[in-house]
């Protein structure tokens, strides 16, 4: 499954990293503690979080995640978006909650 398919199916807003929507998504991970995300997420997963801090980009890059979905339309500072563009890490936004998004991703067939 490619990230652009997830974007279309969940009506996500692409905030940054448009060039890398062709990345395959192998699963999902959800956490708002960035320390947990750093320890628990794996390459190719899409990461669901409420955090928009700059460090989100660092961790997504570090763990080679396919993209980040910021839920509840939480604010993502311009510096985070600029960094994500520079690092080609897709940042996607949705008004839905993390719970809803996780359920929808599961329904699309994604597993851990």
């Amino acid at each position, binding site marked *: 499954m490619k990230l652009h398919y997830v974007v279309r199916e969940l009506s996500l807003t692409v905030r940054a990293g448009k060039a890398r929507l062709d990345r395959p998504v192998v699963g999902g991970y959800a956490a*708002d*503690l*960035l*320390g*947990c*995300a*750093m320890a628990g997420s794996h390459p190719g997963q899409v990461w669901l979080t409420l*955090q928009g*801090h*700059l*460090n989100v980009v*660092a*961790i997504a890059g570090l763990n080679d995640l396919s993209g980040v979905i910021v839920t509840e339309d939480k*604010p993502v*500072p311009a510096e985070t978006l600029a960094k994500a563009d520079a690092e080609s890490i897709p940042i996607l936004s949705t008004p839905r909650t993390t719970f809803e998004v996780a359920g929808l991703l599961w329904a699309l067939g994604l597993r851990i």
Partner: protein
Amino acid sequence: MGAWAEDLARIRADLHVHTVLSPCADVEMIPPLIVQRALELGLGLIAVTDHNSSENCAAVIRAARGTTLTVMPGMEVQTREEVHVLCLFDEVEQALAWQGIVCDHLPGQRNPEELLGAQYVVDSEGSYLRTECRLLSTSTDLALDEVVSRARALGGLAIPAHIDRPSYSLLANLGLIPPGLDVPALEIFRLTDPSQLLEEQPGLRAWTLIRGGDAHRLSELKWALNLKMRGATTNELLMALAGQAERSCSLAPLTHPQKPDMMNVIVSQGSL
């Protein structure tokens, strides 16, 4: 100002003390008892840092008048990222101006006293003045960087609190120290062994680490820091944290004043 204001002096400090305004603090955290305990520990400087409010700072400052203890007004702010940050000021007016800003960035919910505990505003004798009904134990919508820059714009300084705790901390919530974070020091938890922490997090070697008691009860008030500076101003503190102009800052020896059974309680609650 304390008696040591004129000369370069070595003092013991704890820059992270809660009062009964913090819902999680014990009722014993009233100004006269905090001052008495600080003096018993030989402290020359404490900072009053309640959650998202500075309302009780003036009362503790008044309670310390005529003693050798200097009290710095402050606050422990919770950022949008749920990171706790100590903000320290020279004057109560600055702290209250900061409180005004923080108040505008809180959600305005009522404090569920039965769940979280009461938030008491008291006078210098510890007598009840009023109950703060607004929920203080929650996140502001101020980002970490905004807290740092806005506290500084008011003449204060900001230090991320207990960065090695499993929650409400820089390392747990943000995973790593954000590049470009412009703070003079990082606070570690009162029971943390710094050598062990530095082994696990070698990146912290580049930082000035301070220890804070994060006292929610009198027994947690701590001789946490040794400071060498001239007077208890935030400018002097900045110089001490930077090790400039003969000023200095070092962690007090790690002691475990808690009884062994108390330590077990803490560990079993997962607080470490």
